[in-house]
């Protein structure tokens, strides 16, 4: 298990992220996922993204299949802005490229939080939804974002918080324990970075000097109810690494259903959603 100790080396785990090229990319386009839990939260977040009058170039980091620009298209029309979406998972990027092949306002490229294919101080606005947890070093990501953002630019990011799905995942781990070794469970637990608002703020401040930028990190908590099928739709898309490791997948899904049934509370299976919004704005 030496890889467990080698992973947080400041580089994105390309094997993990590129898994979505093979298994999960199309699930992100599924209408049911767009309208439930993370899809809903992302749409709510994007509705509140604000653009300055001088904003001309928007960068979406970890753009996936282009969900962010899908939701912000009207703003791009109104403000005559251009957008660049970057994403390390080729399968997702290919969907975005195909979707926007006739719209020259949007460009797409391979890239990540730690490796942004943009010139210094060239971006007016950085957005990102539910992707920052894939970085292995938040400070490294903050420094790279600070490199490309203009001094009067701004950034709005939505990411999962330390305790997102804390209780829901306890049921998941109980099912995992019947099918995976301790080492396999711990390895999957470490795939995504999980930070508190305070830890996130501190990491952002390493990249963005608080003399020059206002940094606000807020936590949004909610309980989202769904039936087993609704939860599995998003969970499977985001948990391909776990499912890959399980030998008897049918038995695993039955055990998962049993464990989640135990937390059913009359309204449905509750998911304790905890997300962070990061808003950074140049003081110039």
């Amino acid at each position, binding site marked *: *298990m030496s890889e*467990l*100790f080698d992973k*947080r080396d400041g580089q994105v785990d390309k094997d993990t992220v590129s898994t979505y090229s093979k298994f999960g990319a199309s699930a992100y386009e599924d209408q049911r996922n767009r309208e439930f839990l993370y899809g809903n939260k992302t749409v709510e977040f994007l509705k509140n993204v604000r653009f300055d009058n001088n904003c001309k170039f928007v960068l979406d980091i970890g753009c996936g299949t282009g969900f962010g620009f899908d939701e912000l298209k009207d703003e791009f029309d109104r403000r005559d802005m251009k957008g660049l979406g970057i994403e390390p998972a080729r399968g997702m990027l290919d969907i975005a490229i195909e979707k926007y092949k006739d719209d020259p306002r949007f460009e797409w490229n391979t890239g990540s939080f730690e490796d942004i294919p943009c010139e210094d101080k060239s971006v007016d606005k950085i957005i990102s939804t539910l992707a920052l947890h894939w970085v292995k070093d938040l400070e490294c990501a903050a420094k790279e974002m600070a490199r490309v953002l203009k001094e009067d630019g701004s950034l709005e990011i939505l990411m999962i918080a*330390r305790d997102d799905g*804390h209780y829901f*995942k*306890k049921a998941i*781990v109980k099912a995992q*324990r019947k099918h995976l*070794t*301790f*080492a396999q*469970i*711990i*390895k*999957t*637990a*470490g795939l995504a970075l*999980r930070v508190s608002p305070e830890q996130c703020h501190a990491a952002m401040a390493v990249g963005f000097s608080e003399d020059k930028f206002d940094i606000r990190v807020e936590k949004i908590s909610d309980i989202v109810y769904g039936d087993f099928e609704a939860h599995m739709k998003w969970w499977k898309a985001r948990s391909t690494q776990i499912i890959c490791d399980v030998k008897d997948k049918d038995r695993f899904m039955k055990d998962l259903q049993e464990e989640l049934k135990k937390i059913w509370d009359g309204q449905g299976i509750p998911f304790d959603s905890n997300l962070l919004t990061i808003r950074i704005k140049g003081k110039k």
Partner: protein
Amino acid sequence: MSAALDREQVKAKIKALIEGELKIKIESDDYDLVGTDTIDSYTMMLLILFINNEFGVKLDMEQLDFDAFGSINTIVGLVTDSN
């Protein structure tokens, strides 16, 4: 692990990490962290990294199980027993 590092120092550091991560106060060093669903797998992963980085003890993941993280005392044992 350095021979100078005693069990109480190890315990204090491990307890601080768990309490800080989970935003809880652990009253007893024998409190059942696993049976009560207090500790999560992410915190266990952080502990494994912390024990490696802080005390120089590289735990054998294939030999570990959830019970190893059963209480503050059992976690401290992972460090001191491998010294």
